[in-house]
């Protein structure tokens, strides 16, 4: 991979002060301290937005004409599905940054992103399945998007399995970064091919949604929930990353100081 990093390092003159923040971000210690300052605010925002969205969606949005109240699962289901997909790209980008600029912190972000993304994927699948029972009369249907989502779960599982499989932190990070990158190249191909497969076999007997015709009163809380999920995702990612930083840097002096300070106070 060294040719790759050599290629890209040309873009980033090392001494340039414009990029100092970038290299400082690369320092786990700096990230840990800074994120400690951000965290309360982001958490608060996430909480507020999520609460607003939930109350709005569950209590005030109008009932669906055909599905009744069961449609309200959408306020969890769609944001989770959304984030699950973005999460994979976030993970892969973090991995790529690690490979190219050899930045420790981005490997940690990548490692932290995998289980969060997998959990969101699982939530999307699970809520979808629960929703499917009243709507389609079955927990599981081989719909195109559902299938893509399942494959996404497998991709996450692969990255996580590879992380755990290696004893050496360095090898685990690099190997799973490569896998995540290969996965990103494939996600569009997978999604397209699954769509294609589905329309081939099933000329639209199951219409999943009536999204365009969705009423504004239903749609606005959904939007709020999506924003809330993004914020929540950020909180979870920061927390997981901080955890990972402490774990990997436990032998450094600043973490030791931190621990003694905690114990002292």
């Amino acid at each position: 991979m060294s040719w790759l990093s050599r290629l890209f390092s040309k873009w980033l003159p090392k001494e340039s002060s414009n990029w100092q923040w970038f290299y400082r971000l690369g320092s786990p210690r700096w990230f840990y301290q800074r994120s400690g300052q951000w965290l309360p605010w982001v958490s608060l925002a996430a909480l507020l937005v999520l609460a607003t969205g939930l109350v709005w969606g569950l209590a005030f949005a109008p009932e669906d004409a055909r599905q009744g109240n069961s449609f309200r699962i959408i306020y969890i289901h769609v944001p989770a599905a959304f984030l699950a997909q973005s999460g994979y790209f976030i993970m892969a980008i973090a991995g790529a940054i690690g490979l190219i600029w050899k930045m420790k912190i981005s490997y940690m972000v990548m490692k932290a992103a995998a289980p969060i993304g997998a959990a969101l994927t699982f939530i999307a699948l699970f809520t979808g399945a629960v929703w499917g029972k009243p709507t389609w009369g079955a927990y599981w249907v081989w719909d195109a998007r559902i299938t893509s989502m399942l494959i996404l779960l497998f991709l996450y599982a692969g990255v996580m399995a590879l992380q755990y499989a290696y004893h050496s932190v360095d090898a685990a990070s690099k190997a799973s970064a490569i896998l995540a990158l290969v996965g990103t190249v494939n996600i569009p191909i997978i999604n397209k091919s699954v769509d294609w497969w589905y329309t081939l076999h099933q000329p639209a007997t199951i219409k999943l949604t009536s999204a365009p015709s969705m009423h504004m009163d239903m749609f606005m809380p959904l939007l709020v929930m999506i924003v809330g999920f993004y914020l929540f995702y950020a909180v979870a990612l920061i927390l997981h990353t901080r955890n990972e930083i402490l774990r990997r840097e436990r032998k450094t002096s600043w973490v030791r100081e931190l621990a003694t300070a905690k114990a002292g106070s």
Partner: protein
Amino acid sequence: MSQAPLLSVENLAFERDDSCLFSGVNFSVDPGDVLQIEGANGSGKTTLLRMLTGSLQPSAGNISYLGQALSACRYDYLSDMLYIGHQPAVKLNLSAEENLRWMVATSAQSNDVSVKDALTQVGLAGYTDLPCYALSAGQHRRVALARLLISEARLWYLDEPFTSIDKQGVAFLQSCLQQHVAKGGAVILSTHQDLSLTGLRRYKLVSDVEAIA
């Protein structure tokens, strides 16, 4: 080239998972040198040799070849180097001859000693057609060592080359090394045995773990 050494190592250090294995390793090797890396089990000899071959990245320090950093002359350096490690890269299902032919084909440079001759010289004359899993431990390693007779590389890195080799074989191998350095090559090897080579230099590797203890 105002006499830059063939290989020189400056302040080399190696860390694995945040613990330092060794640091401050300095030596240089000129044509005609045999350098024996000594040290207790686990002191990092294999690690050092693999770092020289470029398989592992040093966490600090420089390795230079004819005065240039390795990254600047990767192709030339790798073409001029031969490494035989603990695992001798001998395929069990192929015969000794097939193994050697393949090794020669993938390596950068080779002289005109024929594969059959080389195998005869290392004492495998009657065994060239057997699959290698039917060879004894020592014969198995001899297949890999036969590469030395064919190689034109100047730098040889040998990790415990005398393992499983009988006394006659050890003597032969030493004469082989002697010839190589006489022709202007250099050898860096690790072994726990005492060698009787003229011009032998030793480097004692002390791992940081031991040094503290």
